[in-house]
């Protein structure tokens, strides 16, 4: 079971989590849209320290408008960035992102 369905807007948690995470700083706190579900994968935050990585976590393809990511973005309004993010980094978004 996955918490989010494609088309739903999500906000990336802005936590400063110590240790190895696969969520880059530039998407933290930003709102995007679930574009797809990539499957379930072992948790890299556990694997990075010799852990089992279990339970596997849903991994989503999340789309962001470039203008929502970069202040003063000068490209086209439709320019998008897609990134894979694990479920525990996402929370429901209030505002419409796109």
């Amino acid at each position: 079971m996955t918490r989010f369905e494609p088309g739903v807007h999500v906000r990336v948690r802005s936590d400063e989590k110590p240790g190895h995470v696969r969520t880059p700083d530039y998407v933290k706190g930003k709102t995007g849209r679930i574009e797809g579900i990539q499957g379930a994968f072992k948790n890299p935050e556990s694997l990075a320290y010799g852990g089992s990585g279990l339970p596997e976590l849903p991994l989503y393809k999340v789309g962001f408008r470039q203008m929502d990511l970069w202040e003063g973005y000068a490209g086209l309004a439709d320019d998008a960035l897609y990134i894979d993010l694990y479920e525990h980094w996402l929370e429901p978004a209030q505002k419409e992102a796109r």
Partner: protein
Amino acid sequence: MTRIHDLGGSPDAGPIDKDQHEVQDWEKLADAVTVILDKKGVKTTDEHRRAIESLEGEQYKELGYYERWIAATELLLVEKDILTREEIDEKAVELEESWR
């Protein structure tokens, strides 16, 4: 506070160096050693990434891509009690002398 490896998009990160170069033999070797240690279950890609990210800021900036790979592999081999720092350093000196 964002750590040194996570600087994508930060205003002072500067432009990406897109210069290409012929892959050197030592770089292929660094890649091969890292991959085979994964295949043999000695370490995981995630551990390797974590070790790269643990390099100190100045060291991280000074080292090239595969130099970081090698430094991380060393860290993990020592951490896992497979090699000691002394053994690695002694072997490095030995190899350096044999190539003079």
